[in-house]
């Protein structure tokens, strides 16, 4: 048998094998190296899977060769590929940056355990994406959640503890809701395999339990995805987590829940519930609009750099949901595309913040005043990533804005104008909050004598690699666009 047949399974199995080994490694540098290598290996697997998907391959894998619906099915298509790239890429970049950054925040003897938790979080997130089975998704979701609570609480900042407690409560509620929904559907259909569910749910005479299930699953996942107004766990968790953990989670964690949400909804509910398409739109569109407007507005007045960017993430989730809520090919393409592009933009922003944190204890805007003189390269990367977040042409962020506005305009009429205005106002608010950072960094005189030096070369170079990816995918967005179109095709293919 060809090893490439097992790629889909290897994506997760490698990680579960690595986790116990890393716990045993006592030297922190060794643990770091093992974790990073494992993460890079999964990144390579994700790239291989993506290339396969681009060549028209549809990865369907049955664990132990037990066919679905009896065995466990794994599935990788264009949509999964986008997520896998984002997850493994973000993890690898964050770990590479962590070589310098983590020593400041995590004691040496706790580092191996921390890295093991990291690997488990990664395994959980990747597992969610490749599972084609509702219950396995739940299992992986729990693995990733528990591990990420540990990661967020791992830093020296005691304020992380209440933040993570909130995160835990909300995460558990979300997962429980999801499980209740899955249970209801299992009760009605007798299956947990998503593809099988799609077929069997046709025959369910009484729709009400399915409707209730849809409600539970949607709300539960929206909670985990930090969709406004269920986002309140997010800002503090991102703010007080160790910097590279923020890089990792901000780039992909909430998006994985959105992925499950869209999968579930389009595969199982859209065609089987009468009028579901409209319900979906009416439920999500207003929330997306509020997310964009309110979260951006909060970011405007935020003084802490990390919390500002965390609020910006809440707004960006709004864009992703807005695209999906249109329920059209163009809308879903824009939505998936933004998952990818926002992962790069926010990833590089938080990486630049991690660079700043090498020299600055506090990360309030006043703390970093005048830092650009001392750290020109860090600020250069931050500005570049910020431009991508705003959506300036030539950057990746612009491509997703372009697709999103095109999709919205296709709707026509007053709603098109209204939604365009919302997107545009959101972007303009991004201009303002990014520019507040720029002005503080470049023009404010430092309040105290700055002793900052430019960040070490290692963390700086990885920051720049990701920042330049913003430019690359802004000029040559073929890869994410193709994958997004595949994803949108697959999702819309389930609506008849």
């Amino acid at each position: 048998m060809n090893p490439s047949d097992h790629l889909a399974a290897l994506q997760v199995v490698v990680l579960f094998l690595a986790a116990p080994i890393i716990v045993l490694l006592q030297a922190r540098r060794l643990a770091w190296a093992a974790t990073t290598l494992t993460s890079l290996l999964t990144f390579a697997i994700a790239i291989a899977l993506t290339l396969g998907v681009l060549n028209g391959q549809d990865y369907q894998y049955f664990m132990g060769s037990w066919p679905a619906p009896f065995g466990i099915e794994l599935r990788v298509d264009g949509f999964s590929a986008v997520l896998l790239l984002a997850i493994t890429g973000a993890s690898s970049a964050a770990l590479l940056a962590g070589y310098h950054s983590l020593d400041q925040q995590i004691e040496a003897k706790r580092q191996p355990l921390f890295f093991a938790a990291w690997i488990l979080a990664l395994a959980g997130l990747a597992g969610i994406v490749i599972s084609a089975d509702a219950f396995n998704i739940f299992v992986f979701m729990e693995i990733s959640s528990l591990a990420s609570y540990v990661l967020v609480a791992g830093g020296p900042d005691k304020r992380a503890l209440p933040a993570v407690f909130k995160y835990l409560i909300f995460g558990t509620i979300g997962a429980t809701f999801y499980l209740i929904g899955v249970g209801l559907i299992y009760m009605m259909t007798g299956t947990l395999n998503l593809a099988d569910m799609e077929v069997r749910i046709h025959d369910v005479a009484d729709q009400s339990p399915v409707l209730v299930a849809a409600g539970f699953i949607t709300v539960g996942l929206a909670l985990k995805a930090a969709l406004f107004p269920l986002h309140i766990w997010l800002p503090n968790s991102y703010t007080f987590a160790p910097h590279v953990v923020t890089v990792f989670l901000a780039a992909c964690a909430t998006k994985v829940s959105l992925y499950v949400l869209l999968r579930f909804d389009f595969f199982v509910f859209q065609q089987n519930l009468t009028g579901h398409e409209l319900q979906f739109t009416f439920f999500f569109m207003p929330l997306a609009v509020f997310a964009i407007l309110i979260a951006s507005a909060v970011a405007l007045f935020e003084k802490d750099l990390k919390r500002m960017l965390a609020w910006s993430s809440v707004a960006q989730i709004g864009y992703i949901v807005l695209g999906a809520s249109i329920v059209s090919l163009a809308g879903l393409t824009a939505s998936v595309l933004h998952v990818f592009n926002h992962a790069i933009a926010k990833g590089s922003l938080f990486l630049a913040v991690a660079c700043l944190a090498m020299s600055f204890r506090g990360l309030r805007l006043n703390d970093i005043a005048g830092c650009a003189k001392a750290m020109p390269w860090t600020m250069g990367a931050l500005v570049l990533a910020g431009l991508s977040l705003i959506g300036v042409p030539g950057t990746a962020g612009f491509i997703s804005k372009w697709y999103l506005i095109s999709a919205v305009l296709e709707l026509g009429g007053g709603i098109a104008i209204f939604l365009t205005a919302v997107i545009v106002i959101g972007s303009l608010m991004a201009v303002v909050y990014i520019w507040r950072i720029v002005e503080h960094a470049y023009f404010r005189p430092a309040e105290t004598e700055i002793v900052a030096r430019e960040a070490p070369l290692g963390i700086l170079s990885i920051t720049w690699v990701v920042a330049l990816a913003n430019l690359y995918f802004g000029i040559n967005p073929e890869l994410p666009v193709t994958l997004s179109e595949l994803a949108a095709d697959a999702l819309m293919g389930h609506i008849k």
Partner: protein
Amino acid sequence: MTIIASLVIPLIGAIGIILAGRVNANLRESVTLITAGALAWTVWSLLPEVLAGGRPAVSLTEIVPGIEIAFRVEPLGMLFAALASGLWIVNSIYSIGYMRGNKEKNQTRFYTFFAIALSAAMGIAFSANLFTLFLFYEVLTLSTYPLVSHKGDEKTVRSARIYLGVLLTTSIGLLLPAIIWTYVVAGTGDFTMGGILAGKVDGPEVGLLLGLFVFGVGKAAVMPVHRWLPAAMVAPTPVSALLHAVAVVKAGVFTITKVIVYIFGIDFLAESPSGDWLMYAAAFTIIAASIVALKQQNLKRLLAYSTIAQLSYVVMATAILKPLAEIGAAIHMVAHAFGKITLFFAAGAIYVASKKTELHQLRGIGRRMPWTMAAFTIGALSMIGVPPTGGFVSKWYILAGAFEADNYVAIATIIASTVLNAAYFLPIIYFAWFEPEQPGTDNDHGEAPLFAVLALTITAALTIGFFLFNATALELGRQLVSP
């Protein structure tokens, strides 16, 4: 190839400036001058082919199907690029005199971003579609921000914030939706002779789309999106001269003209009553900005408001929608550029020599700075439109177009604005030459540095020269409306 070269040369120059800046200032300035010369030579080498009817084109990359980064040299873009690249040489000479005379800091950064801005201006000039244009439009905005905020003090940063805020807000908020709307309805954004929107939008949508374009192009400074231009006057004067009298603002009116001619199409827009408002908006801007200019006490701010009015001349001329007026619009870009850059050069020269910025300080200054004030006088006469200056030629064509269209509002506006122009420029000239100096003020100064005087003499000569030698510009203008 030549097209790509004209974008890349300034960028290479920018890198050269950074490297040379570490060695010494003379080398750095040489790199700037050589880059400017090479750029002008490259751009001007395209001219014979375009005049002969050729439209060199190159496609760089297709971002997504239907949306590509592509360039195509058409008459208006040729005119704009030739103008901006030619004046960059003169402006660089002037910059050397000004920046050294003023002992400005961070000169390497200044010259670097100047070169990047020029590259962006070339990109705008040669863009073959709306997407490419927008790309370079934003690069121009961002690359001029460090130039405007050059001084870095509280007041400058606040003004620079207005500058960036207005330009980014309008471009992302209005221009981008307009462009995407165009792509969605027309399936393309290529600049095409005769327009691409005929039959694709109708009724009030035409006016709305036109509004998104006109106010989205904040660089054209049609009221009420003009606030950034006076704010940008905190920049060093060479920036005000080349960028905020030529490259940036002309990029704005250039974009509007291009959109009206190649996206809407003159005939289509003439048939759409909902687009009529543009003419009135431009006319209002001309009058209102001139009245505001009357009340200014600061020389550079007066020039800024004069620029706002003059830019709307181009917009109004375009909006008359007659071939003669379009030609007038095209050559007014050139005529105004020569005149206004001279005026800014003069204002900067006065500042370098005497640190004077306010109008009342200028009494009798003509005797101390005869070259500077002579050039200023020529520039001012061109603004008013007195022969033998370039401003007369373009006004002639715009008026001819207005008569052709029986557009009496436009004619009245031009007459009124001529009077207003005279009302705010002639007193300055009169006081400078014929009034005695105010005693007690610090008047112990002579002419500005040689480089500055040299530059403003050249542009003053160009202002007069354009009255006589305008055949090339006219031909390019003619090709704009009838290939």
